[in-house]
């Protein structure tokens, strides 16, 4: 009985140590909600976020669920936190549906959707770690990324 109790208590310091290390790692990680940033913007570029429309200027930090829109003279290039590069041509709508990324393990999930227009993609660390973790959708197709550069459009 005593032995059991002692063993039960013995786990205490281990748990504390475990929490301490985990706590340090979590607190030490940069607390950033942004999933990427606009690096290039030409002509008319807007970002829809939570029902609001923001100017898609160079330097704007991006969040998951943002939708980027370019006008007839517009184009936009973004770098995601996992180093994926996405760039859209004129009259394009690009939704960043889902982005999760653990920089220590490189594991995550990236789903982007080209609703209309043209898009160039260079995949990043998420797809390099696990190819099935990144998809690009169009209204009619799903593209699986195997560590790669490609272009995609939604009409001719």
């Amino acid at each position, binding site marked *: 009985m005593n032995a059991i109790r002692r063993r039960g208590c013995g786990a205490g310091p281990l748990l504390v140590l475990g929490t301490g290390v985990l706590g340090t790692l979590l607190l030490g990680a940069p607390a950033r909600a942004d999933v990427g940033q606009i690096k290039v913007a030409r002509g008319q570029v807007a970002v829809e976020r939570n029902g609001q429309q923001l100017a898609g200027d160079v*330097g704007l930090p991006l969040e998951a669920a943002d939708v980027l829109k370019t006008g007839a003279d517009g184009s936009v290039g973004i770098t995601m936190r996992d180093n994926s*590069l996405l760039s859209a041509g004129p009259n394009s709508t690009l939704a960043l549906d889902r982005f999760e990324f653990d*920089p220590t393990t490189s594991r995550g999930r990236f789903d982007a959707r080209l609703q209309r227009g043209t898009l160039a993609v260079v995949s990043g660390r998420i797809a390099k770690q696990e190819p099935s973790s990144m998809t690009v959708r169009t209204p*009619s197709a799903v593209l*699986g990324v195997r560590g790669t550069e*490609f272009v995609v459009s939604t009409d001719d």
Partner: protein
Amino acid sequence: MTSRAPAAGPALALLLVLAGCATPQGRVVLLPDPDGRQTAVQVSQDGREALLQQPYAGAQLTRRGPQPYASSAQEVQARFGAALAAQPLPPADFTLYFVEGKDEFTDASKQVIDGVFAEIARRPVPDVLVIGHTDTVGNDAFNDTLSRQRAEVVRKALIERGIAADKVAAIGRGKREPVVPTGDGVAEPRNRRVEIQVR
């Protein structure tokens, strides 16, 4: 007039069917990998699939599924030139090396930092990611902490030299990404490093 009508009916219907099937829903083209590695894109449309795995392999998206074709650099430029011209500069990589088991970097590595600042100056909205790595001596918990400490040392050095603190993040990858593959528990100077990515 009446004699032509029966022929025109089916012909028109056939045209409409063909047009329906051929309604373009876009296209996908695999581009060459800059480092010459084997890459691929899997295209799926309602269970119909095409695997593009050669440079400039293309697929037209149609209601009958993806239709493979051979694209070209010229076609890609004509259709996707504006999107490609907006591509951000790829991240630029720099590497600093560390003294074994410590978070001090070697003297030779101090010069690399000058190159980092030159790269930062090239970019309109630079942000910097400092990634620490270790060799395989020690367990994950030890190496995750050590790699992060190494990254923090470099991050502080960059901030002291003028980079805004909110533009530079530090992370540790532990022993997960050695440049020189070794067994576990091997002291390897080339794996004790910090990468600086300017993007």
